[in-house]
């Protein structure tokens, strides 16, 4: 009897602990706002309720536009009767989690954010559902209303892998040059268009800081080593120099060439001379924070980040920021980055998932959302009166339109599935230069040597 009592207590205790843990873990993470809100607007000529009662799991990147999507989710739920579990993760963890789910074949997530450089990692092994059949199905898509032709050709091209459309973009992002209009006006500076002009402008700003005329440092750049951190900015800078560190088609490394060392030297010397001290582990979050709190006068930052700079509640520079295409060498361009929505090949609700993707990239929703995040993928958004009114300045819109039509590289090397490891190596050697451990020559040579071990050939 004593043993039975003990056994019962033990079993009950185990159930309580496991059940309590399950409740605790289940209560966090996924969010599903209730079905509230109106669904005004033109939603095309399809039956949006055809998958009513289904449930979708969506994995999105924690970024301002995702917060905007979250606010509109009740509208989708009301429009379709489909319940949505919308999970947000930071970019790096979102990518890893998505990749693990895609490769497992379990289909835990029906839909995921696809970043441009994730495309080949996800689509190469066939993890993403091709979308042409859904676009062509009249029951699922009102083609005339959806109007895929509204996307600039370079932007929609980003969603294709091996000839198949695997995700539909909702942002078109690239770097813009941020500068403090008030400081430029006070010091009589003009917006630099070339790297030489940028260096000269940085020197003038640095001289003004040392003379006590301004407190801001001249420049800031991403320095935290990693392919998605400093590696990304470094490769983008190379692209603006009309140069590529690595040719992934021919598997040739150009890091240890004269031009490669020139780009490395430019990137690191701008930081060492003009950036605030001790910024070796800065990424875009720290740069944005430094810009907003009047620590830095110039930077290159994503066009999508304007909202954080112009938010008067948290930015001391709201209304004082100028935007321009980033300085470039002749023939240079800035790599395009897009975020899009793609469907898991192993999703158990592909039809419902397509309705979500269609809704999330539709002209109706984009008209409503674009003023909130500033970098829509659809071209018609840029002339919409609501969008124009919501943007910080015409200069910002003009800079974006210039980049969309003349300034972007729609096929940057970073889209290769081999980008991660190689860019990681180059960025780590770059960080050795920043830390004073190696000089440019040694860092370039060591990067090259490490790339040779991966099968790359040195440039002739």
């Amino acid at each position, binding site marked *: 009897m*004593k*043993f039975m009592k*003990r*056994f019962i207590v*033990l079993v009950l205790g*185990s159930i309580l602990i496991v059940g309590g843990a399950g409740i605790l873990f289940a209560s966090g993470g996924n969010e599903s706002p209730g079905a509230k809100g109106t669904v005004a607007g033109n939603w095309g000529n399809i039956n949006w309720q055809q998958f009513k009662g289904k449930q979708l799991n969506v994995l999105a990147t924690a970024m301002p536009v995702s917060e905007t999507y979250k606010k509109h989710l009740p509208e989708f739920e009301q429009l379709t009767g489909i319940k949505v579990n919308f999970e947000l993760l930071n970019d790096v963890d979102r*990518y*890893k989690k998505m*990749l*693990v789910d895609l*490769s497992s074949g379990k289909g835990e997530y029906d839909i995921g954010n696809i970043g441009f450089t994730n495309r*080949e*990692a*996800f689509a*190469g*092994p066939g993890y993403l559902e091709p979308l042409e059949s859904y676009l062509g199905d009249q029951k699922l898509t009102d083609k005339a209303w959806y109007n895929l032709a509204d996307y600039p050709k370079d932007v929609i091209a980003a969603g294709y892998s091996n000839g198949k459309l695997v995700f539909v973009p909702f942002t078109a992002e690239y770097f813009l040059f941020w500068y403090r209009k008030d400081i430029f006006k006070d010091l009589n500076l003009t917006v630099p268009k070339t790297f030489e002009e940028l260096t000269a402008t940085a020197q003038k700003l640095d001289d003004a800081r040392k003379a006590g005329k301004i407190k801001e440092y001249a420049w800031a750049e991403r*320095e*935290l*080593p*990693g*392919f998605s*951190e400093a590696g990304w900015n470094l490769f983008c800078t190379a692209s603006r120099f009309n140069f590529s560190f690595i040719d992934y088609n021919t598997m040739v490394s150009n890091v240890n060439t004269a031009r490669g060392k020139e780009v490395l030297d430019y990137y690191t010397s701008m930081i060492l001379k003009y950036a*605030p*001290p*001790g*910024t*070796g*582990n800065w990424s875009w979050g*720290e740069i944005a*924070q*430094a810009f907003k709190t009047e*620590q830095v006068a110039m930077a290159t930052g994503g066009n999508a980040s304007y909202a954080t700079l112009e938010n008067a509640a948290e930015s001391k520079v709201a209304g004082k920021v100028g935007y321009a295409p980033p300085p470039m060498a002749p023939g240079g361009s800035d790599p395009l980055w897009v975020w899009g929505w793609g469907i898991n090949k192993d999703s158990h609700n592909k039809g419902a998932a397509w309705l979500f993707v269609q809704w999330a990239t539709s002209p109706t929703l984009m008209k409503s959302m674009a003023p909130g995040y500033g970098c829509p993928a659809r071209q018609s958004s840029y002339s919409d009166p609501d969008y124009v009114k919501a943007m910080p300045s015409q200069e910002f819109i003009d800079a974006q339109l210039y980049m969309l039509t003349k300034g972007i590289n729609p096929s940057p090397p970073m889209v290769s*599935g081999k980008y*991660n*490891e190689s860019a*990681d190596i180059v960025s*780590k*050697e770059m*960080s*050795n230069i*920043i*830390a*004073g*451990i*190696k000089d440019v020559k040694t860092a370039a040579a060591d990067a090259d040597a490490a790339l040779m071990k991966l099968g790359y050939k040195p440039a002739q």
Partner: protein
Amino acid sequence: MERSAFRSRQDRAFPYVAILPAVAVIILVGLIPAIHTFVLSLESYELIHPPAKFIGLSNYLDLLFNNPRYLHALSFTVLFALAATGLELVGGFIIAYLLADRDVSHVYSSLIRTLLMVPFVVAPIAVSYTFKTLIYDQTFGYLSYFLRLLALPPFNLFHGTVNPTVGILVMEVILRAPFIAIVVYAGLSSIDPEISYAADIDGASSLQKIVRIVLPIILPILIVAAVLRFMDALKMFDEIYVLTAGGPGYTTENVSLFAVTQAFSYFHMGYAAAAAFVFLILVIILVSYFMRAFR
């Protein structure tokens, strides 16, 4: 007679039944993943280029004989863990010894011990971001501010190879020494005060009391605390990931960061599994050695 024999069998069986759930969990979340990891380590499995291909011990041979980056990660991990554990033991013992002094009021000691628990209830990643931005950062952090007030040179976390290591080490010791302090305090509290009085009568100095009386008595507790902290320090990830991302270069990359990078940034799943398995073997050897050496 039969009833008492049955009860005796029940009593003998009860301990095994009681630990059965824990053993089941350990097998599910420990043993089975370890076996799967070992199998994965014998394969060339690229997450974005499936399927996996059996390659025997090639991953292990490459890691141990052809990858200086991994060997650096291994040595950094072990040396860092040894240094961190040593400093935490010293710091934790000093804190505990001061708090256990009979002249320190019980209320004050309880308050300090409660405050020492704070690092345990905050997620390591949150603490790491706090150190990165609010303490070490020369633009946003207050370490630079106080160094300027004291007319001392600034501390650049990302300069050279020593600064990043020292920065992470200091953060780790500040966070984890309280654990040693709390464990050691419990041990010190259990020492009979009569022994200390007797030592005082015999004219023993404070240092002699510590070396000849206190340390021998609490040695088993110190060993357990050291082993637990050492194992934790070996598998540290959040702090390095946030503070330096393993940089500059590969200076502060430990085995955890190396394996995660190989698996989820470079997609070399089999290679990462081999890296983790080599490390597991090393940890088992090191911990076994420590346990035997100090018994």
